């Protein structure tokens, strides 16, 4: 379950890094915003949790995507996607979003009711139907993104842009538009992940840091910019995190995971599944 949502949020980061070669440190805050918006939509939309959930699935990605669009236009484009400047600027963005969320929504955790509460009874344990739905939905989206990347014209355009900016321009690909689209798509994906997770894990203005670090971990292990790698890594991490947490305290588990991943990045900068960058 954790692995599925993790893969989804890491996918956004990976997509952006893969095509644009920049790391968006505010990625976790997009996640947090998605969750906050899900809560806000659920509160605003009458007609029960299901209606709220459906509305959130539209509102959250749209709003976060729009913010991402502004970020790309007003920030990243101006600094010419310089990798280091982007990190510094998105750190700034992280603080801004976090503070605004705190001021607008307050510091308390916000619960959101699940759209349905059907429990599936397996012979040996009961399983929340909603959790299962999250897994299925995530897998569905992952496959969808993969399909777009591997099988469609848009995917081809993205891969060409990823390969070489100049060549892409020479082939008449509107690189700027592709960058915008990818950045927006990355943010929208993480917002969807947030909407899915929020009935299980409450919305809170500080919730962005964990998924950010986890997304870092997943993307690094999976090889920066490799989508297949990200998904595999998300599955491993999601399960490993569960397993390690059984034996150690959550803090220690996080320490171990963080150190392990940092070491991966040191020893194999291209990731465990990645290919060497040119």
């Amino acid at each position, binding site marked *: 379950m954790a692995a599925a949502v993790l893969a989804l949020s890491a996918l956004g980061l990976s997509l952006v890094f893969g095509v644009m070669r920049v790391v968006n440190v505010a990625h976790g805050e997009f996640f947090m915003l998605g969750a906050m918006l899900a809560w806000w939509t659920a509160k605003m939309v009458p007609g029960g949790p299901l209606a709220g959930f459906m509305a959130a699935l539209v509102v959250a990605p749209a709003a976060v995507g729009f913010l991402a669009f502004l970020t790309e236009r007003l920030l990243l484009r101006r600094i010419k996607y310089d990798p280091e400047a982007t990190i*510094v600027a998105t750190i700034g963005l992280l*603080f801004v979003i976090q503070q605004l969320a705190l001021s607008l929504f307050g510091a308390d955790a916000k619960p959101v009711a699940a759209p349905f509460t059907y429990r599936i009874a397996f012979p040996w344990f009961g399983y929340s139907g909603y959790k299962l739905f999250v897994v299925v939905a995530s897998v569905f989206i992952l496959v969808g993104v993969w399909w777009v990347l591997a099988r469609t014209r848009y995917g081809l355009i993205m891969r060409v842009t990823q390969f070489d900016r100049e060549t892409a321009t020479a082939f008449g690909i509107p690189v700027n538009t592709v960058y915008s689209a990818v950045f927006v798509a990355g943010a929208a994906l993480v917002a969807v992940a947030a909407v899915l997770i929020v009935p299980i894990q409450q919305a809170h203005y500080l919730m962005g840091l964990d998924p950010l670090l986890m997304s870092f971990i997943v993307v690094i292990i999976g090889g920066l910019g490799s989508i297949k790698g990200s998904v595999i890594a998300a599955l491993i991490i999601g399960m490993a995190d569960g397993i390690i947490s059984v034996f150690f305290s959550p803090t220690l588990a996080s320490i171990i995971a963080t150190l392990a991943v940092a070491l991966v*990045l040191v020893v194999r900068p291209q990731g465990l599944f990645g290919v060497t960058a040119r």
Partner: protein
Amino acid sequence: MFLHLAVIAALFLAQFAASEYIVLMLTRIMVLAIFAIGYNLLFGYTGLLSLGHAMFFATGLYAAALGTTLMGLTVPAAFAFAVLAGLAVSLVMGVITLRASGVAFMIVTLMFSQAAFLTVLYFGEYTRGDEGIVIPDTIRKFAFLGFDVDLANAVLRYNLALAFLGCAIAFSLLIVRSRIGHILIAIRENETRTSMLGYDVQRYKLAAFVMSGTLSAFSGACYALMFAYAGSTLASIQYSIHPLLWTLLGGASTVLGPVLGTGLMFVLVDLASSYTNANLLMIGVVLILLVLFFPKGILGTIRERYWKWLP
């Protein structure tokens, strides 16, 4: 050189004119400016952007705090212990993280720093986590070279911080003007080229990393001992971003830039705090504006346009 002495002199004179509140604030600025100076050695001069300097600051902070409260060290011994700890931690971290470069280096330092932060929380029994360690005043009173020193004394504390800051500025100037300083700048400007001129780039980067980390640890020790407090917030990611912000604001790769940036940011936050307590917002906005419009910072821009000689 003259300019730097003038800054020190101005800070010395300031204590006679300023209110108690301002003296305290200036003390804090000076201590943290040492942190920024250390950061600048790595970021400004060597071109390595670390997102994990909180771990070095925290190393000094906790070495001093735990050293005095748990290990029974005197204050001078705690300073020495903190510097040694900073040296050791930055050496080990440098050897590991410098294998990565560019964006990978930034992320690796960020993650190690996060691991260090979590470690502080994990050993909450000793570090008291969020709540923090308070160093009792009895420990902060000690005899040193025949003088009775009381770190709770605001005036003494101010002048001690000033002396330390003066040393840090002098050290930074010395490094920048030395052979190694020139080579560090060469590495920043063109690493491959520098290596192909026969310089052991890795070794110089490590040297810069260790100097930077140790100076940061020293600043952390000052903070703990002078303000009698060490808490986990001071080890969090925010404290990795602070020195970056201060350095960027004042002007990376200028000796006084980090000092100016630290001071200015404190003043900004202080002014803003009368309207709102949104200082994160402040930090974020300043960071974004700097990256967009003033990537060279205040002194960097001044150097570019007017005073080319500024070190």
